[in-house]
């Protein structure tokens, strides 16, 4: 585990977007962190891959700061460093595969948004909903198999719990500006087990002090 003297800057837009899981992980890790909202696109070329989010781990010994990017990579790094991903390779991989599936669901959503013609839009909407349904089935089964405690693995807050919460705050709150119907569409598909996970994450002692710019997802689900 990394030293608790570490401090971080998370560079992203002032939006939920792809950064919420990283924000929650930084909060749950109990480390010092701040957020920067770079001027965009002016700051594009100053980022390693020309994109956001970027995580800067500030150096304490005069060496260059450690900088990484790619949202899922930032999440995995924080999760491994602060113990939210297990050290056991198989156990970690079982959690990581969920995040890769989430990436594809989000990607299909954005493809649908970008389609201009009605047939393409409908085609990608169907693909998005189909993969989301697969994901919901996988998530629900894990939650049931773990005793429907609102946790996917074991009895503590895990990376899998956090990235699942991160997905749903995106779809129910963050992405509404791209597609007005998505919130109602997704809410109607959520199983009781997933709703319980959302509440368990939001009220976890490690997370409870985090206030999302999107507000409470629990509240958004009952709205």
């Amino acid at each position: 585990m990394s030293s608790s003297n570490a401090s971080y800057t998370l560079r992203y837009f002032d939006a939920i977007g792809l950064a919420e899981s990283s924000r929650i992980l930084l909060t749950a890790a109990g480390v010092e962190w701040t957020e920067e909202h770079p001027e965009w696109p002016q700051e594009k070329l100053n980022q390693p891959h020309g994109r956001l989010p970027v995580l800067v781990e500030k150096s304490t010994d005069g060496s260059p700061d450690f900088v990484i990017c790619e949202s899922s990579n930032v999440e995995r790094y924080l999760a491994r460093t602060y113990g939210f991903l297990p050290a056991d390779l198989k156990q970690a991989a079982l959690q990581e595969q969920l995040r890769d599936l989430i990436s594809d669901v989000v990607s299909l959503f954005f493809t649908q948004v970008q389609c201009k013609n009605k047939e393409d839009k409908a085609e990608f909407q169907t693909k998005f909903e189909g993969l989301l349904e697969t994901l919901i089935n996988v998530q629900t089964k894990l939650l049931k198999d773990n005793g429907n405690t609102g946790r996917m693995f074991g009895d503590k807050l895990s990376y899998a719990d956090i990235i699942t919460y991160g997905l749903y705050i995106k779809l129910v709150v963050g992405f509404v500006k791209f597609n007005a119907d998505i919130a109602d569409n997704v809410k109607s598909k959520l199983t009781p087990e997933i709703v319980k996970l959302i509440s368990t994450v939001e009220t976890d002692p490690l997370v409870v002090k985090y206030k999302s710019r999107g507000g409470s997802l629990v509240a958004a689900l009952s709205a």
Partner: protein
Amino acid sequence: MLSGSDTVYVLRYFDVIGRAEGCRLLLTAANASWTEEHPEWPAEKANQPFERLPVLVERSNGNEWILCESLTIERYLARVFGFMPTDLKQAALQEQMADQQADLLSAFFAQLTATGDMKPKQIDEFNTLFDRMVKEHGRILSRSSSKQHLFGDHLSYADISLYAFYKLFIVYLKCYQSDIAEIVKSKLTPKIINLILSIEKEPQLAPHFSKCDTMAAIFTAKDF
């Protein structure tokens, strides 16, 4: 190595390069006992945990363990077989390259399927991202002690992932877009081409090329 000598792997995928080449190369480089299965599709869809391929099946001591999602399978195999650094920072620097490559693949499909005024925008986005990525590969290579490897002087996950990525674009994706290989080749620097061909010559990867062609013949003298 964290895998017992009685462990065998089955990689389930389609009989194409697709998204499984990194997994194939890792299993080969690891000298693991492995075979490939090409499930009837879509008949076998419902029998896969995420209804998708690839799937990795690991069998050991009578137990069976299953993992999904190509990038997770790659990272798992890379860790089991020692191609991923154990230092978390060094690992993250390699993993982000694979994530960037996955973004490029998405951008490729986005520009392929875009219509109307979105098409030129998506093509532009793809080209910008690709050029930026090639520059990043060049930057990492210039800081590497070896010009045949991205990090250190041994074959690493990053090398294998990079090779699989370029093979995907230069050998496979022409089935979707006939000119993509030439477009991508024209973006590569001589140093990157040299890296690709050096990785290909790694002794650990030799068994892979008993089943498919190397890319050496694709790059002629004028590409260097």
